[in-house]
């Protein structure tokens, strides 16, 4: 009986500690850190430039990163399974070429969209089938198809450009939602982002992606068709390359063979910066969303301050390394804390 107050006090102590623990656990999540970075970016640039925190400017800036942010969504699925796709920029170029060529031949807007999506989907499917049937590493296969897809558009287009498009084609990439200052592209991104978040976090398919990423073997033995899911991921990514090609072509109304060059690494950077583990099995759509905003508005803000794009590449490169290094250091710190508490 007399020991009871002691127990109560102890349990209260444990509760407090676990609250503190939970708080530390929460605050040291990469997504939360990223959110702080995002706030920091906004506060910093708002202090530096009175043009930064302006709704019109903020919305207009989304034109610069919406397409890449859209591509980052299906890339989450691929990286979640421990794969990688470095051919996406080339698929976008191939689709854009097809769109430009068909438009030159007088195709209507619906035809252009269908063609672009079809070509993208097939290119992605080819990647997926090559990777899974012969069991070749994704990075090697997509390195080859990167040259193949880009090579087709270079071979067919040479140093030419396609600049003839149907009258209203610019709607997708240039216009705003009627009556507002929100670009259609950005709205599309937000909708897709929510859709991908739902699939990844609320459906069986999403849980399977985590399972495959953590252990493909274990996933296979528990009855998941790993091959099929990986093929679907690559095909889905190809489909979105087709979509992005439409948006991009519509925004700049000009197609050259070097279109979207270098996007592969930029988009992978967005995904990894968003906290998705390159080895698979860890990450969230929300993290990638915040990561995309951070990168997008960093670029916009630095542009406003007339800082060179150079500094930007250094900042992004460093952020990327920090994104992987910091959680590891925090894990070490947490493990040490736990040890100390047990002692």
């Amino acid at each position, binding site marked *: 009986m007399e020991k009871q107050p002691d127990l109560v006090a102890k349990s209260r102590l444990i509760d407090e500690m676990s609250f503190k623990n939970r708080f530390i656990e929460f605050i040291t999540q990469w997504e939360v850190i990223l959110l702080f970075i995002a706030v920091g970016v906004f506060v910093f640039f708002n202090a530096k430039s009175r043009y930064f925190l302006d709704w019109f400017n903020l919305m207009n800036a989304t034109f610069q990163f919406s397409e890449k942010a859209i591509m980052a969504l299906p890339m989450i699925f691929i990286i979640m399974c421990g794969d990688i796709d470095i051919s996406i920029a080339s698929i976008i170029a191939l689709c854009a070429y097809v769109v430009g060529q068909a438009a030159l031949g007088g195709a209507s807007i619906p035809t252009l969209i269908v063609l672009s999506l079809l070509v993208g989907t097939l290119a992605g499917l080819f990647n997926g089938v*090559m990777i899974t049937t012969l069991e070749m590493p994704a990075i090697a296969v997509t390195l*080859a198809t990167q*040259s193949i897809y*880009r090579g087709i558009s270079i071979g067919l287009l040479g140093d030419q450009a396609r600049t003839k498009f149907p009258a209203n084609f610019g709607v997708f990439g240039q216009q705003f939602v009627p009556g507002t200052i929100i670009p259609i592209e950005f709205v599309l991104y937000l909708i897709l982002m929510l859709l991908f978040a739902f699939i990844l976090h609320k459906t069986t398919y999403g849980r399977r992606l985590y399972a495959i990423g953590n252990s493909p073997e274990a996933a296979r033995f528990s009855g998941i068709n790993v091959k099929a899911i990986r093929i679907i991921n690559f095909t889905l990514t190809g489909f979105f390359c087709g979509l992005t090609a439409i948006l991009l072509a519509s925004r700049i109304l000009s197609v050259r063979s070097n279109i979207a060059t270098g996007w592969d690494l930029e988009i992978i950077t967005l995904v990894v910066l968003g906290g998705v583990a*390159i080895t698979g099995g860890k990450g969230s759509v929300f993290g990638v969303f915040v990561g995309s905003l951070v990168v997008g508005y960093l670029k916009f803000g630095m542009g406003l301050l007339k800082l*060179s794009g150079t*500094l930007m590449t250094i900042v992004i490169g460093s952020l990327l*390394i920090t994104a992987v290094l910091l959680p590891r250091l925090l894990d070490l710190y947490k493990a040490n804390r736990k040890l100390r508490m047990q002692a």
Partner: protein
Amino acid sequence: MADTPFKTMVRRTMARRELTLMVLLAVLLIPISIRSPLFLAPSNVNRILNDMAILAIVAIGEFFVILSGGIDLSVGSVIAFTGMVCGMINEAHPATSPLLLLLIGLSVGAVLGLFNGVLVAYGKIPPIITTLGTVNIYRGMTFLLSGGSWVTAHELAPAYIAFPRKTFLGISYLLWIALAAIALMYYFSQHTRTGREVYAIGGNPTAAKFVGVNENKVRVIVFLVSGTLCGLAGGLWTARYASAVNEMATGFEMQAVAACVLGGVNFAGGAGGIIGVALGTLFLGVVTNALPVVYLSVFWQTFVQGLIILIALALNTISDQRKHKRMLAERRA
């Protein structure tokens, strides 16, 4: 010391791979030289070899990283940074000897490679992420260093520009350097303890650790080797192309990786050899230069390269899988 069965097996398969590549190269060269007898003329062969020399140097560095189970995406940026350093030093001090410049490039490259290696080994950041970060950082540093401007041909000393073109026994210095790098790195990979440890770490990191291989040391060394060779390549690049441009060697990592894939290097790590990589580079060079001969526009170069990489990859994988199956069958028997 007698060869272990494992060592003989490795040596045998490598010999076979290199043989396959040579046969393929010959098969490729016969129709080309029938079509255009001038293709195999000494001057053209010399031109192709000189074109591929820098890629060979970089591909060898990339080989060690892939051999250890990693990948180095930063090679293009390391070349750009070291090339810019060499170019700017040469501009400021035209009297600097070309050899000293190359030595400087090599050392700067070694430092950049070391940075990659330390992040991978001690920061435990996957190689692909580390070098994805540093490819941006090093490229940005190049811009910062140059302030966005170029070093053009007339700002470089004639002695420096002429250096790679000078010949000894009819072979250019550039080619001699590439050959020396191949020979040296062949020795390193086959006949030194550290070289063999790279194979061990790539083949089976756990087993390698149990027999006492220092994994961190090996991971640092492969990136150090890659960075150093890229530094050398950067110094040569500025001289050969007679300018140092901020965007130089962009995307060169893909070419280096492609040469490795063609040379039979396995992405899983632990398999492949220097001679294979050198032949892979040569193969890439022959194909690229043969396009006009078969009346294919140069615009199709990228496509053909990609197709060849994919075919080589598929052949490598299929032969690997067959070998694996055979080994399993033998073990069961």
